[in-house]
């Protein structure tokens, strides 16, 4: 059997699978180690950056996936079925942002921060596959712990949780200045 180019194999796999594929599994198929595979993927990504390419590669934690480039959107909506977009209400977004930044987190902790019950919001987020149960807290009642999913990363265009927008921005600066110390305390938690 003739050895195929690793790039070609990876492209074929990612194209066919559609969904994200773990780098470790890709490494196995091309018989390389994970580091080498990541390098090949990085090379492919820079190839996709060329002007005449309409697709690109995104990384999601330890997986990669092929997707269209964002600036193709205008043309795509003319012809392709765009996936049904779910609208996230403010309640859902607030709950989601708390889960994203404080995961793993229990319902009770979310409620403490928001001051209101969150059962419905958490259930909806689980339904949308943005949030999932990630375990149970080792505490009385063994409450469920929630965290964000890979779909969350895709939906919000972040590669990993480490890439979430930081909790400081111009607007944040304003009230941070009022109480630098206190906010810092929050961030450290």
């Amino acid at each position: 059997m003739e050895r195929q180019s690793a790039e070609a194999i990876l492209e074929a796999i990612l194209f066919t699978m559609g969904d994200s594929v773990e780098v470790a599994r890709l490494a196995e198929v091309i018989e390389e180690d994970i580091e080498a595979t990541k390098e090949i993927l990085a090379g492919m990504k820079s190839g996709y950056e060329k002007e005449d390419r309409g697709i690109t590669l995104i990384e999601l934690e330890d997986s990669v996936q092929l997707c269209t480039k964002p600036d193709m959107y205008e043309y795509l909506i003319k012809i392709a079925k765009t996936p049904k977009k779910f609208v996230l209400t403010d309640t859902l977004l607030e709950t989601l942002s708390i889960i994203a930044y404080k995961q793993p987190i229990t319902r009770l902790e979310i409620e403490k921060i928001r001051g209101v019950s969150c059962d419905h919001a958490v259930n909806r987020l689980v339904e949308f596959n943005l949030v999932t149960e990630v375990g149970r807290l080792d505490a009385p009642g063994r409450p469920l712990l929630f965290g964000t999913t890979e779909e969350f990363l895709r939906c919000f265009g972040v590669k990993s949780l480490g890439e979430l927008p930081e909790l400081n921005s111009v607007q944040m600066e304003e009230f941070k200045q009022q109480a630098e110390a206190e906010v810092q305390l929050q961030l450290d938690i």
Partner: protein
Amino acid sequence: MGWNMAIPVKLQVFEGPLDLLLHLIDKNKVDIYDIPIVEITAQYLEYIKDMETEDMNIMSEFLVMAATLIDIKCRMLLPEEVNEEGEEEDPREELVQKLLEYKMYKYMSFELKDRQMDAGRTLYRQQRLPQEVENYKQPVDYESLLADVNLNKLQEIFQFMMKRQEDKIDPVRSTFGKIEKDEVDMDLKTTYVIEYVKSHKSFSFRQLLEKQRSKMEIIVTFLVILELMKLGQIDIEQQDICDDIIITSKILAEAM
């Protein structure tokens, strides 16, 4: 003073008591670290008084905060509390911390919303396996599949099962003969008897039964006759017990 303005009754819906408090603080342009507790509490209470919700769960969440605000208000009227380290404690401190934390996540939720808009411009693809891949069947590795199974083992298993089967056999029931189930269609029989009654002015029950083959058919025919008598479509006469039953039709075809 700015914060004395009346609160519109049908304000926006707040996510919860903290959201409402943040709104009031913002609206009154006051320092989150120096909340004029008397004013804010008054406005807060006014708002929840006008709140048009009958959901007690939502209402109670707002009421808990109202109680907290009133508690803080009271404590501020008392001489300042001192903690273990001898520092003065602001009764508002805990609330401020909660407000700050909540405000931070609320802000991040707007940030996420923007991100979602941008990310929504990227499209993905469904999994599509080429037919050849779809149809691929992994070949069976018989050596590992059969491992230590050989013909003798197969035979042992079979004998064991037949033995087990024997143990289960009921010695009485297994000697019974076959019982055939009679198939008599009630509706068909009814139609048949009615047709017979329509075409015969008078006939004997025995005469009708001559056409019936099995016991079940005879029983069904008898039931149909009884039913027709009940409906008044035939008359029945019997001179003596065990005599033939004479049936007279009242629904002769010509008469209809």
